[in-house]
C-alpha cells in the first residue's frame, strides 16, 4: 500500500488554519465608504454646484498617481494597495473638507500632503498616526487662509463660473463667495450681535447654514448606511455627537443669545462628515471599544471650543489631529480585560 507514491504526497505546509474566510476585504470596505459619500456629494452638487465634481476627479487622479509612485519608491506591492480604494477615500474626504471652488493646484497640493506627507511618510496605510484628510485640511488652512475661507455662495451654482474659479487662476470673486454659517455666526458674535438676529440673515436655513444643512443630511444618510452595513462602529459617531452636542447644550442653556444651539453646531460645518467618515477612520482612531468613545467625545469637545473661542471658524480638524495624538495613550489605558480577567466573572 505504501508503495503508491500519490498517497504520501507532501502538501503545502504553509496552508494552515483557518481554511475559510469571511468574504470581506479592505477594498470592499473602502468602496462602501465611497458609496456612502454619494448622498452628501449629490446634495452638494444640487445646493452648491457641480464644481466639486471637477475637484473630485482631480483629487482622485492625483491620489492614485501619488500612491502608486510612492509605493514604487518604497518597493511595496503597488497594484494591491492602489486598488484597495483607500487613496480614493482620502482624496474624496480632502475635497469635501476644502471649499469646492479652491484653485486646482490647491486641491492637488492638499491631496499630495495627505497621501505623501500624512500617510506614506509615516509608513503607509495602517501606520499613519494622523488622519490624512484632516492633516491636509489643517496644512492648507494654515498655509492659504484666504483661499481656504472663500466658500461658494449659496444660490450661485453656475458650473461655468465655478469651472473658471477652479481652473482659471483669476480670483475676481466678489459675489461668488459667501461666508459659511459658522463663519457668519462667529463674525456676528464677535460684533456683539445676538444669536437670534444672526440666524435671521440670509446665510441661514432651518437649523444650520442655508444649503449646507442639506449636505449634512446627505452625509447623515450615508453614515446611517455605513452603520447598517456594519462598516463603521456606532461608537465614534454617537459619542462625537454627544461630545459636541452636550458641550453646546450646556453653554446654550446658560446663555442662548451668546451661544448657538447644539442643533446648529451639528448641522453646520463638517460635523456630520466628521462624525461618520473622519472619526471612523480605523487607522487613526482608537481601536478599543472604550477608547473609541473617549476619542470621539474628545474631538467633539475640542471642536466646540475651537469653533467658539478659536481663530478658525471650523475646529473639527484640529480636534481630530489633537485626539489622534492621544490615541496611543487612550489605547494603552483602555485595553480590554481578557477572558478570565474580567470583573463580571462570577455568575
Amino acid at each position, binding site marked *: 500500500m505504501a508503495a503508491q507514491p500519490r498517497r504520501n504526497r507532501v*502538501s503545502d505546509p504553509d496552508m494552515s488554519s483557518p*481554511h475559510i*474566510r469571511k468574504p470581506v476585504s479592505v477594498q470592499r470596505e473602502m468602496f462602501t465608504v465611497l458609496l456612502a459619500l454619494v448622498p452628501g456629494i449629490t446634495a452638494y452638487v444640487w445646493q452648491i454646484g457641480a464644481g466639486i465634481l471637477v475637484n473630485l476627479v482631480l483629487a482622485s487622479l492625483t491620489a492614485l498617481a501619488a500612491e502608486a509612485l510612492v509605493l514604487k519608491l518604497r518597493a511595496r506591492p503597488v497594484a494591491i494597495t492602489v486598488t*484597495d480604494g483607500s487613496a480614493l477615500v482620502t482624496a474624496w474626504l480632502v475635497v469635501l473638507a476644502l471649499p469646492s471652488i479652491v484653485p486646482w493646484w490647491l486641491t492637488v497640493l492638499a491631496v499630495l500632503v495627505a497621501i505623501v506627507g500624512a500617510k506614506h511618510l509615516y509608513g503607509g496605510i495602517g501606520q499613519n498616526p494622523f488622519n490624512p484628510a484632516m492633516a491636509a485640511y489643517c496644512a492648507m488652512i494654515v498655509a492659504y487662509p484666504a483661499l481656504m475661507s472663500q466658500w461658494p455662495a449659496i444660490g450661485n451654482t453656475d458650473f461655468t463660473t465655478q469651472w473658471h474659479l477652479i481652473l482659471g487662476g483669476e480670483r475676481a470673486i466678489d459675489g461668488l463667495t459667501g461666508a459659511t454659517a459658522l463663519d457668519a455666526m462667529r463674525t456676528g458674535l464677535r460684533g456683539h450681535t445676538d444669536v437670534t438676529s444672526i440666524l435671521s440673515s440670509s446665510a441661514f436655513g432651518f437649523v444650520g447654514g442655508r444649503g449646507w444643512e442639506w449636505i449634512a443630511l446627505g452625509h447623515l444618510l450615508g453614515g446611517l448606511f455605513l452603520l447598517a452595513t456594519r462598516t463603521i462602529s456606532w461608537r465614534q459617531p454617537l459619542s462625537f455627537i454627544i461630545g459636541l452636542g452636550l458641550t453646546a447644550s450646556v453653554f446654550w442653556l446658560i446663555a442662548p443669545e451668546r451661544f448657538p444651539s447644539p442643533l446648529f453646531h451639528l448641522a453646520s460645518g463638517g460635523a456630520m462628515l466628521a462624525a461618520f467618515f473622519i472619526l471612523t477612520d480605523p487607522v487613526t482612531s482608537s481601536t478599543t471599544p472604550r477608547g473609541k468613545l473617549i476619542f470621539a467625545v474628545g474631538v467633539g469637545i475640542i471642536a466646540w471650543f475651537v469653533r467658539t473661542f478659536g481663530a478658525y471658524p471650523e475646529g473639527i480638524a484640529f480636534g481630530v489631529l489633537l485626539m489622534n495624538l492621544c490615541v496611543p495613550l487612550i489605547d494603552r489605558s483602555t485595553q480590554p480585560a481578557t*477572558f478570565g480577567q474580567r470583573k463580571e466573572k462570577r455568575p
Partner: protein
Amino acid sequence: MSLPHLFRFPGGIQPDAHKKESSEQPIRPVPLPARLAVPLVQSSQGSARTIVTVGDKVLKGQCIGEAEGNAGTAIHAPTSGRVTEIGRYPMAHPSGLDTLAIVIEPDGEERWIAREPLDMASASHEELILRVQASGIVGMGGAAFPSHIKANSKIDTLIINGAECEPWISCDDRLMRERSADIVTGARILRRLTGARRVLIGIEDNKPEAITAMKLVVQAAADDGGEISVITVPTRYPTGGQKQLIRVLTGFEIASNQRSSSFGVQCFNVGTAHAVCRALVHGEAMVSRVVTVTGNVEHPGNYEVLLGTAVADLIELCVAKPGTERTLMGGPLMGFTLPRLDAPITKSSNCIIAASNTLFPPAPPEQPCIRCGSCAQSCPTGLLPFELYWSSRAKNYDGAVHYNISECIECGCCAYVCPAHIPLVDYFRFAKSEIRARNQEKRAADQARARFEARSARLERDKAEKAARLTAKAAETRAALAANKDAATDANDAALIAAAVARTQAQSQAQPPASGQNGGATPPEPSI
C-alpha cells in the same frame, strides 16, 4: 423546569455550517484496511509502553501498550491480527514528524478478547478510574487529555460537550442521534466518579435531532436522583471550545493558567462519555472512533474508524473528487493541513476534509493591517489580535506576552474576519512556539548556571580542604619530629614547610589558567 440562564462569551463568528453534507447518513463501518499503525503516544500528557513484540498474535481490544506513569494511557489492538512491525510512522501533526507506532496486519476475523464489564454496583472508585486509564480513554474533542485524571477530581458541575461548533464536522451530532443512551450512561458514570451535583449537556441549536434524541434518553430515566439536563445553546463558533462552553453554561471564565476543576467544573466531550460507557459497562477498550469524512468527496459521512487506519484509506473509501488539493485533519477553522496522508487516525481525530480550492480557497495575499478592530470584536477571549500581530510580526515577544498571547486559543476567528487577509493565527502560533522555546532555553540556562556554580563551589571547597589537610599533615610531621628527636633544627623545619608550599604551588600552576578550577594534580574522583 425553568429555562436555564445562559451566559455570553465575547466575540465569536457564525460561518456557514456545512454540516448537512455529512450529518444525514448513519454512522457506517469502514472495511478492514490492509494495515493499522497505532502510535504509542495518543494522549497529550503521557505515552504508552509497548508490551508486544513483532510476530505476536493479538486479539481485538487486547492491550498492546501499557500506560506509562500516572498520566499515561494504554493503547489496544484495533482488530485481531499479527504485529508486523514496531517502527517510526508519520504522526497526525502539522509537523509531519515520525513517532513510534505498532503496526498490526489484520487477520480479518475481528475476534474480540474476552470482554470484562465492571459491575457498576460493587466496583470501587479506584477500580473505575483504573479501568478508564487501562481502557485508554482520552478526551475525544481534540485535546486528547487523559480522562482518568479529569474524572478523578471532585466537582460540582459536570459538563458534557455536544456543542460541536466547528463547520463541516458532524461526528458528535451523529453519535448523539444514534448512541444517546450510551452517552447518557457514560455521563452518569462520570457524574459518579466526580461526585458532581448536576450534569449539563450543552448542544448547539443547529442540531435539533441530537437534542431530541438526548432529551428522550434523559427524560426516560429521570428518576435516578441526580439532575441531568440537556441545554440548547446558541450556535456561535467557538461555543464548543471547553472554556467557552463552561462560560455559556455556568458563567465561569477560566483563564489559561487556571483549571476548570478549581471552579468546580469539568468538561467532557460526548464522544468521551460514550467511550467511558463502552469501556466500563461493556468492557470494550477504545479501539475505534467516529470520524467525519467530508468536503470534496463523493461519499461524505460519518464512519466508525479503527484507530491506526491511514487517512489515505478513508479518502480512498469516500472517493476524493477531482480538484482535491490537500487534506485537512480537524475542522476548517482549527484543523491543519496533513503533511502526509499515511498519517493514522488517532483518538483525537474527529474530522477529515478533502479540500479543493473552490470549497476552501487559498488565502488571498496579505495586505497591510488597517487597525479596523474586527479581529478584536471577534476574539472569544477578549484579546487585541492586531496588537499581538504587530508584536509577533516584529518578533517582539515581550510585547506579545504583554498583550496576553498565552490566552489565545488559536480558534481562527480573527483571521476569519480580517479584511486585510492577514494570517493572524500563523503569526500567533509562530510567536507562541518561539516564546515556549525561549522559556525552555531560559530554564535550561538557569539549570546550567546553578550546576556550574555548584561545581565551582565544590572545587573551591575541595581545594581548601586539601590545603588544610596538607598544613595539618606538615604540622603533624613537625610535631612528630620534635617529639622523636627533639633535635630538629629550624632549618629542618623550614625545609618541611618549603616542601609543603612547593607542593601546593605546583598544584595551582598545573591548573590551566582558563578554567582555574580544574585541579590538574588532584586524583580523578567520581562525580555525580
